[in-house]
Structure formats: C-alpha cells, structure tokens
C-alpha cells in the first residue's frame, strides 16, 4: 500500500521528465489560456459591485442586486427568449442544411463539378458580417430583390419593409446564417464521409441498395459520431446566437425580436456605462452555457455515444 503511494508521484515525475518536450511545447498554450480565459474572470466581481470606473475594484459591494434587477427586467426576459430562439433556429438549420448539402455533394460523381460547388458554397464564409448585413438589408428593402420576387409570384401586393417586421427577424437571421456558413460547415462532414470504408458501399450495392438507402444506412451512421460531437459542442454555445448580424440589422422597430444577450450587454454595459449590469448578464450567460455543455455531454455518455470531456 505504502509503496504504491510513494511510487505514484515518482512515476508522475518520471513520466513528466520523459515527456518534457511535449510539456514545454504546451506551456505557451497553457499560459495563453490562463491569461486570456481565467485572469479576466476576476472581472466577474464587478457583477457584485456598483462598479464605477473612477473607483475601479474599490467600488462598493452590492451582493446580488444586479442579478435581481436582471430577472425582474422584462427586457432581459425578452432578450433571453430571442437568444434561445435564434440559437435554436441556427442550430437546427446548420445541422440539417450542412448534413444535407454534404450528402448531396458526396453523391456528385464529377470531381470538377463537386469541388466547384463546394468552393462556391463556402465562399460567403469569408465575407465580413458588415458586408453581409449590407447585402441583406438592400435585398430586403422595399424596392429590393426579395420584394420584387414576392410581388412577381403574387404572394404580396404591396412591398413590405422586411426589416421593420419584428416577427420576420429570427428567420432573416436564420437564413442569412445558412447562406453564409452552410458551405463551411459541410467540410467537416465531407471529411467524415471520406473516411467511411468504400467496401461498405460496394457490399450494399451488391445487396441491391439504391442511392437513398446507401445514404441512410451507410453514410449517415458513418458520420453519426461526428454529428454527436458537434451537437454537444454546439449545445455549449446555445446562449450565443451571434452578435454582429443582429447588431447590424436591428432598428427601433424590430428591437423586441432582435436584441440578444450580447447586444443587451453592449447597450447597457458599454453604451450606458452600467458595467455591473453588463457583467451580471454576461456571467449568467456563461454559467448557463457550462451547465448545458455538461448536461449534453452526460446525456450523450448515457446513450452510449461519444463523449467530449
């Protein structure tokens, strides 16, 4: 018993010594994470203070005051709803469209056509959100392409100011996200598909499987681990519905559906100088994210699937 207890640390040091190059190489990364991820957490103390920049961290302590304010604020509830709704729409759209496109691309036999389609589909990923927001807002203007098409199809009679329609906002964000990111998101699935053993397809073909059955019974199960891992990772981001697109497209009329937690934090924290309230909002978001991530990970383990942590 005692020898084991003594041997363990010795073994640890010995192993550390043999892996010293690896350890050395990871030092900068660990420092980076500590410096930029853990040190700023000290700023969370602001959430429990009446923070005034002039006084700094010597500002008076107020306990849970700002959290109480947050949860009694109608606006914060609205903002939570918007964040979750847009996030959920993004999550569902991202998965279905990306997997769908990956399956379709995989079926394209002509290599040249396939890579051209793939390149074109992921090009928008490299556009800045400012440019995308400009495109979207001019497309949705009352004399924009969208209205022209709807009118031509006879769906609407009078052009609508789409960015002034609060209820349309979530869907605008959802589809803009799809357009911008779908190509990029397929890359990882295409990589996963390429690692599926071709013998399986051949066997299935001999057994008389058509295209769609092969997709369903070989491709999809083959990339299931990838899908699950990505799903877990994405659930950890469910409180992040994005910031730029909402920020750039929001206006007085649609603000009830456009403001996400991040925008709330920026408006109340930075613009109106209420740093404590902003920190409380941001902190709440992080805590929820961690809980969601852990839960998803645990559920996935229970279901006998991949676990991330």
């Amino acid at each position: 018993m005692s020898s084991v207890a003594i041997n363990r640390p010795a073994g640890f040091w010995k192993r550390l010594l043999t892996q010293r190059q690896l350890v050395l190489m990871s030092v900068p990364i660990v420092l980076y994470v500590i410096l930029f991820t853990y040190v700023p957490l000290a700023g969370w103390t602001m959430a429990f203070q009446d923070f005034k920049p002039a006084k700094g961290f010597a500002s008076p302590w107020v306990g849970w005051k700002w959290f109480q304010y947050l949860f009694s604020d109608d606006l914060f509830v609205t903002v939570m709803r918007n964040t979750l709704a847009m996030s959920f729409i993004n999550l569902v759209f991202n998965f279905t469209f990306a997997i769908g496109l990956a399956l379709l691309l995989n079926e394209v036999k002509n290599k040249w056509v396939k890579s051209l389609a793939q390149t074109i589909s992921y090009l928008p990923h490299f556009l800045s959100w400012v440019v995308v927001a400009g495109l979207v807002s001019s497309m949705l203007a009352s004399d924009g392409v969208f209205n022209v098409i709807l009118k031509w199809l006879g769906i609407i009679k009078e052009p609508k100011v789409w960015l002034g329609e609060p209820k349309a906002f979530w869907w605008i964000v959802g589809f803009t996200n799809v357009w911008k990111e779908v190509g990029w998101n397929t890359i990882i699935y295409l990589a996963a598909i390429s690692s599926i053993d071709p013998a399986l397809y051949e066997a299935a073909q001999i057994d008389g499987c058509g295209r769609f059955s092969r997709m369903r019974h070989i491709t999809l199960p083959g990339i299931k681990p990838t899908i699950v891992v990505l799903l877990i990772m994405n659930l950890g981001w469910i409180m992040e519905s994005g910031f730029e697109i909402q920020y750039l497209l929001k206006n007085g009329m649609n603000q009830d559906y456009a403001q996400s937690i991040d925008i709330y934090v920026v408006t109340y924290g930075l613009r109106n100088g209420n740093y404590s309230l902003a920190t409380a909002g941001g902190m709440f978001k992080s805590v929820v994210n961690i809980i969601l991530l852990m839960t998803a990970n645990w559920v996935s383990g229970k279901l006998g699937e991949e676990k991330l942590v």
Partner: protein
Amino acid sequence: MKRLSLIAALLAIAATMSLAQAVDKLPTTKLPPVEISVFTINANFPIPPEDNRVYKLIKEKLGVTFKWDIAVAEVDQKIGVMIAGQDYPDLLDINSPKFIDAGACMPLEDLIEKYAPNLKRHYQADPITWAKMHEKDGHVYCLLNYGVIENGYTDQSYWGPAMFIQKAVMKEFGFPKITTIDEYFDIIAKYKAKHPTTADGKPTIGFSILTYDWHRFDLCNPPPFLAGYPNDGDGIVDPKTGKYRVQYYGPEAKRWYKILNAMNDKGLVDRESFVDNYDQYLAKLANGQVLGVHDQYWQFQEASKTLFAQKRVWETLMPLPIVFDKSTKPHWRDMPLPNLQRGYGISAKTSREKAIRIIQFLDAQLDPAWQKVFTWGFEGSDYIIDKDGQPVCTPEQRTRWDDVTWRSHNLAELWWYDAPKLEGRFTKNGQAHALRNNPKEYQASQYPEDVEIFKAYGVSSYAEMMDKNPPPNPAWYPAWQIVPPDGSAEKLAFTKAQDTYAKDLPKVILAKPADFEKEWANYVDDLKKCNLQLFEAYIQKGLDERMAKFGKLK
C-alpha cells in the same frame, strides 16, 4: 492673352508674398514641440492630408502635431470601451457627462488661471457662463466648443431645429406664407402629387424621419415646438410654474402623431426611414428626393453641401417655423447658448507637464490672428479687404470656399470644429469671426435661389425667417443640458423610455387610422412601465438648482 497671363502670374506672386507676410505675423510659442493625441466624435471631416497648410503652420509656429482618433459611428459605445479600459488620449471630445462622471478628465480652472490668459478672458467674460461651466464638484472640465459669444451675435445661417421643406416646393406654389402644420403637409402633398419622381426618376418622399441610433431624438422632438415651446428636448417646462414633464406622451405629442398617422395613410411618410441608418437618410436628402423633414440643420448639412456642389439649390431644404395653430407664437429659434459639456477636455491620465503644454497651445490658437487663419484664411489668397475695410472674396475665392477638397487642404476644420473658438465679433461693432457673417460677404455668398426666397419673404437670412428677434433665454434653459449620470436608475429609466418610443412610435405612425387610438394607448402603457417619474424628478432638481443660482423663470 500673353499680357493677361503675365498679370495673373504677377497677382499670384503678390498673393504668395502677402501670404508669406501674413504667416510671419502669426503669433508663435517658443515651447518644445509636442504631439497631442485627440479623440473626436466629429466624423464630418476626414483625417487631414499631410500637406494641409494650416496644420503645417501649427506645427511650425506652435510646435504642435495631432494624432487623431475619430469615432465614426456608435460613439457612446466607443466611449464606453475607452472608459472601461481607462485608456485615454490627451484631448477628449466631450459630448455627454460620460467622461466627466467616469473621472476621465482633469480639472482645468487652475491651469486656465495660470497659463491661459486668452481662454480666461474668453470663458470668464460672462460670469454666468463661467459658473455654468463648473460641474457639481466645483471643477471645470470642458472647454466649450460653441455658444460663447463676444461682442454680439452675428451668425445669420440657421443651424437649429425646424420643419424643413424643399425649396422647390415653395417655388412651385409662388412662395406662400405657411405657418401651420396642416398647411405644411398640404403643400407637400400637392407637390408630391404633381411631381411623383425627381428629375432623374427617383420617387419623391413626402416626409422623412431620422431614427438611427442617437439621432432618433428627431422622432420625438417636434411636438413641443409645434405647440410653441422652446427646445427643451425630451420635456416641456411650464413657463409659469417652472414644472418639468416628459413630453413623449403629452397632448401635443398625441396631436402630432395623429397627424403623422394620417399623413402616412396618404402615403406621405417614408416607411423606410424607421429602418434606415444615418447614411441612407442622408443619401435620400442628397438625391433631392425628400420634400420635408423635421431635423436640426447641422445633422444634414452634408447632404445639402452635396446638392450645392451640383448647383441643385432648389432641391435643398429651407427651415420653416411651423406650429399647430395660427394663434401659437413659434419659439423654434433660441438665442445662442453656451454649449455646456460639449468641447474638449484634457485626460486625467495626461501628465501635468503635458497638460500645461496643451493648455498653452489651446490658449495660443484662440489668439485672434490664429482664429482668422481658421475662419478667414489669408488675406490676398482667400479674401481681400475692400475700400470700406470689409472682408470680401473674389468669385474664384468664393468658389474655392465651397470646394470640399480645397477646404481639406487649406483649413483646419477637424480641429477647429470642436476646439475653443471665438464667436461673434473681433471687437465691438467690428468684423465678424466667421468670414461669411460679415455683411458684404454674406450678401455676396448667397446663392441667387436663396436671395429670391429671401426677397419673397422680406427677410435677409434663414435665421430671420425662423425668428427675427428670439426672446432671451430663461436662466434654467435648456433642460436638455441636464443629463443623469451613467448607470443611475434615472438614466436606466430614460434609456428604457427611448427604446420604447423607438419601438412603438413607428407602429403608431404606420397603423391604419382606425387603429391609431389602440396603438397610442399601447405606447402610453409601455412608457408608463419605464419609471419615467425618476427621470422627471432628476431634471426638475437640476432646473430648480439653476433657477436658484441664476435667477427666476425669466
């Protein structure tokens, strides 16, 4: 031909020589050279080109170079980031209590007393102005950029709020006298029916509203003006009792939005103006599409400049002092005010040594000779003195003054705009500080189209058109200068109310006339949830303090 070019060459040489002489006469400071970093919210002008003659002179004679940090949009946010990081340049362009409340600024009264005789004379000439420049803690932090007038007010252009109308509309109907809001919309409707598109085929817009970001005050400012109250911004002060109330949901407001709602039903209101940003708003004005707006001239002067440069003067807008009823006396134009909490302050992080150097520079540039460089340019090359001793421009010089490119190379507009400056006259009954406020040059610089309008209405300027003799300002005026500090419950309540009107007023305006009452009730309900009484109490306290300090209501 040859002789002509010879004369031109001689003239050019003479101009250069007199320029050289004028430059030699400029006061200099024999102090070590310094680079001053400046944060400015003034996004109207680009960073000056290297060869700009005035900045070159400032460097040469006063030993100062600038490092600019221009906030292009989302100003409050940028300031919030600066405050959170406690990272400030030397000079901070103050436009709200943010910097001062955050302790970002250095007290200046002591520096002014010791090192800045010009600034001292300028700001202390009127003891009330000087008293108002002191913040609650008894210090002066901000060197006001506008409204400190010496030897009488001379400005004849109109920068303030008004119901603006396209000049072409007035011309079309033979320059009618229009005083009420009904007449205003009536004439716009008639013109729009007659001219559904502009000359280049773009649809004309009856009435546009600037609603973007902090500019959104245009959405809620008209009602008090239309009811004959002066510019107290978000509220109305009862002239008899001195009692303040937020005007967003008062009877005047309801009347105004009901009118707008009806006008929208007639297709006169631009629905897109509720989703447009500032650039899109300006673009529509610069296209000559917009027939009417409520705005303050300084907010859209860039659009007008674009039209002036294309000689499309009829398509620019002119101000009208519109009211609800003929019996109401308009009070749109007010007497100039010290522009409190607006202008440059020195960062508290700047060393005292450098702060002294900066205040000495600020003092030196306030010298009349330097002020003339900023606003008149140089004698001979930019203006001439005629036989009566009046500054006037030759036609070529005048054209140059309107040329944006020339200005960017030959004027220090970016600096001058928010810097401490002389306004009014150089001496009693003397020449005006602004070149074009001198009577002869003013007359000569007016576009013939404007002269035609002035003649039709028997006035000499748009300022006169708004009000020939505005009444003196009461001591508490204006309420918009009182702003609750960031992070306070009062400020939160106010921000909420602003968000509410930005969200609900478009609905009120765009609703079918039958639904107006419903939408209005909904808007009032939402506003009542914002705790506005906190904000009202704060402003009332500020007004009462002013009345106690500077005298009663009148």
